[in-house]
């Protein structure tokens, strides 16, 4: 079964492991998530679980959303996402998933929305080296340099190649960070501590799922 929970980034800290070595740790509040809907092969064409996290103000939600939540016999949720399952899931709508599902799992992937950086230049956005600091460079220290030439073989011919790395909006996109080791699980406070940093700012919504590549 696919293991996923919705959650919220609380922040980062340091913890000592059993060897007494300090480790960077992100604290995530994962769940409890309510199952809003169970999708099946016959009616939906695929099988999945729809999860909801964190209660929302009823007056702030639209009527269809309230009705959708009522079907599962729960309150309206702020963060609703779907997770595909292999085969028909056993759970029923209205059931709750907690951090308990991560027991026995060593590594997780975390999906979140990165911090927005606004309109960023090529050095920040793509790691370009910029122009020299001296040797006659004038007011072009953070510029991208040439972006093409007229030659069809070596350069771009007419116009500029598609996908050429340039300045532009950076951040505020969905990103997955993989293979965070689970350091600790705190069932009482619905917390899960993972090693390393995860995308987004504190209080940002996250999806935490079992690692796809590492056991």
């Amino acid at each position: 079964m696919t293991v996923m929970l919705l959650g919220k980034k609380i922040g980062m800290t340091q913890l000592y492991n059993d060897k007494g070595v300090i480790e960077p740790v992100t604290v995530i509040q994962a769940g409890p998530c309510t199952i809003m809907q169970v999708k099946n092969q016959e009616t939906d064409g695929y099988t999945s679980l729809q999860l909801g996290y964190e209660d929302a103000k009823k007056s702030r939600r639209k009527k269809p959303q309230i009705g959708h939540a009522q079907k599962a016999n729960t309150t309206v949720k702020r963060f609703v996402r779907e997770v595909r399952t292999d085969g028909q899931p056993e759970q029923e709508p209205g059931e709750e998933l907690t951090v308990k599902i991560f027991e026995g799992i060593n590594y997780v992937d975390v999906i979140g929305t990165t911090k927005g950086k606004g309109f960023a230049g090529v050095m920040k956005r793509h790691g370009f080296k910029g122009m020299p600091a001296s040797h006659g460079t004038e007011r072009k220290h953070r510029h991208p340099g040439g972006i093409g030439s007229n030659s069809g073989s070596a350069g771009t011919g007419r116009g500029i190649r598609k996908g050429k790395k340039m300045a532009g909006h950076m951040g505020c996109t969905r990103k997955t960070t993989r293979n965070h080791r689970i350091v600790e699980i705190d069932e009482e406070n619905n917390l899960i501590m993972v090693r390393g940093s995860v995308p987004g700012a504190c209080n940002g919504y996250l999806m935490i799922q079992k690692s796809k590549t590492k056991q």
Partner: protein
Amino acid sequence: MVSELIEKVEQKQLKKNKPQFDIGDTVDVHVRIVEGEKERVQVFNGTVIARKGYGINETFTVRRIVNNEGVERIFPVHSPSVVKVAVKRSGYTRRSKLYFLRQRAGKAVRLREVWTGKSDKKNIK
């Protein structure tokens, strides 16, 4: 601002008996060292010249002179490898960071001892 939940997480690893010492104290820091299979305790003696951070991130800096060369080590207060901090001598100081000691050598490094009783009276200049 640190969230309450993070404080709760850190709380478990904080030392219950936090070592008590002040800036300017001469201390023996007992450090647990693991060499392969073996484990032993090493003592680092020196003056506490700084204390930084709070909670689990709290650290202190100990300075000593070895072979005419200043050596500084930074220890996390709550680290399990810092077994014990024993105060050997309390130095009198008016500031919280004694970085000026780095510019000093020889006898000038000494700090006036804190007056604790009659026997110490002769140490006060």
